[in-house]
């Protein structure tokens, strides 16, 4: 499966509510030289720009107006655990967890 098959896909919860689009793939690094990457989940939301620029990371604190702006834009981003993914369709990804039970991405971000 290629990354492009996941990124940008619409995500819907069991009730058919739109959770947003996949912005980013979240991995856990393991292995002896830390080159093994396990996909543990997806980041979904409406606006991807802040995430793309790196503002969801803690080490990335820009001029504060930009930090505030981009973090505000990605405030609704949600984290979907890989185990919650039910089906990856050509148009959308269906998940098992209802939208309101998802964690906010900012709370889990590295």
């Amino acid at each position, binding site marked *: 499966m290629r990354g492009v098959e996941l990124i940008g896909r619409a995500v819907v919860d069991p009730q058919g509510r739109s959770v947003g689009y996949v912005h980013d793939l979240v991995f856990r690094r393991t292995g002896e030289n830390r080159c093994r990457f396990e996909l543990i989940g997806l980041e979904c939301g409406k606006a991807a720009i802040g995430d*793309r*620029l790196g503002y969801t990371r803690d080490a990335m*604190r*820009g*001029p*504060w107006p*930009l930090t505030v702006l981009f973090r505000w834009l990605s405030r609704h981003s949600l984290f979907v655990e890989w185990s919650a993914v039910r089906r990856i369709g050509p148009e959308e990804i269906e998940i098992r967890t209802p939208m309101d039970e998802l964690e906010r991405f900012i709370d889990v971000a590295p």
Partner: protein
Amino acid sequence: MRGALKITLGIMTAIGGFVDIGDIVTASLTGARFGMTLAWAVVLATAIMVLYGEMAGRVAAVSKRAMFDVVRERLGVRFAMVNLGANALLSLLTLAAEIGGVALVLHLVTGIHYLIWVPVVGLGVWLTIWRLPFQALETVFGLLGLCLLVFAAALVLLPTDWGSLWHEAIHPSVPAGEALPTWLFYAISLIGACLVPYQVIFFSSGGREEKWSVKDMKDARLNAVVGFPLGMVLSLSIMAAMVPVLRPDSVDVRHLGQVTLPIAQALGVLGLILTFIGFFACVFAAATESALSIGYSVAQYFGWTWGKRHKPSAAPRFHVVCLSSVIAATGFMLTSVDPITVTIITVVLAAAAIPLTYLPLLVVANDREYMGRYVNKHWQNGLATIALLVMVVVSLATPPLLFATKAGQ
């Protein structure tokens, strides 16, 4: 001692490297038409250039990343591709304008029609990219570019009214008989001429070419902080030299020949010769720099081997891009479009495109994981944010002003 020499050299290079056909045309045009009332635009643009030039150097030295590595990483493939397209097109136009500019200088010196010179200049630019070592390119042309100090000398010898020059410069206002939009349009063209994106791309990639590391950061910083402002002095003295000679009749400067009149009046033939050497060096260097920056940005986007530090056979795709840009730009000039018109259009479009290159730079300069303790200081971020705001305003104001003034008529 050698260190001091290297720094002096770097600074002098920065002075010469700052000025190109865009600066020459816009500075003289505005000087003859608006006096010093637009000097603030040059000062403002130079301040921004210093701020972001220093940042580009620091990012290149510390994180070992050149401009388009950063752009692609931070903006994502798609937006970065749009950015690449816009920047490459703009640099191509700049390259065309610079090639035309060199051809015009050669026309003035030899009397041979400039269109005959265009392919010769194109070939020269390409040969320089192909063979001349990077350091030689920067140093030789940068130093020769200092000949443009004749404009400052001319200013002393001409019947300059220093008081009113100074007064105009620090109390900017729209001169009588001119409309506000036109005045602002030319302010934008001056800002665009100072901040053309190829300069930052070249500056950051050049840092990688010279294998800058944290050790060299002081030099890089000094070059930016001292070199660019001194380059601004060159631009301003070109602008000011027009005032005593061409301003009284508000001559519309549309030809490079007109720019040399104040020099001839003050310093005669010798001054003219120095002017042409300076013009040639600055504009020719800018032509190579803009061609290289196209190669740099494309190769960095796709992750190819790039740079003059490699033999061409080791970086073949980079050289193919540079070669094709030189051919395309030369071909464009051979259609006999007016080089001065191309220049003005280019600097105005450049003004609109400034934030594209500067925003990702600001973002990365704040990333602790990349920059460690060399991240932007608070005051740098404060100034950079204001500058970014200015750039966005300029970029948004450009299209309507272009329209309203019919490109500055």
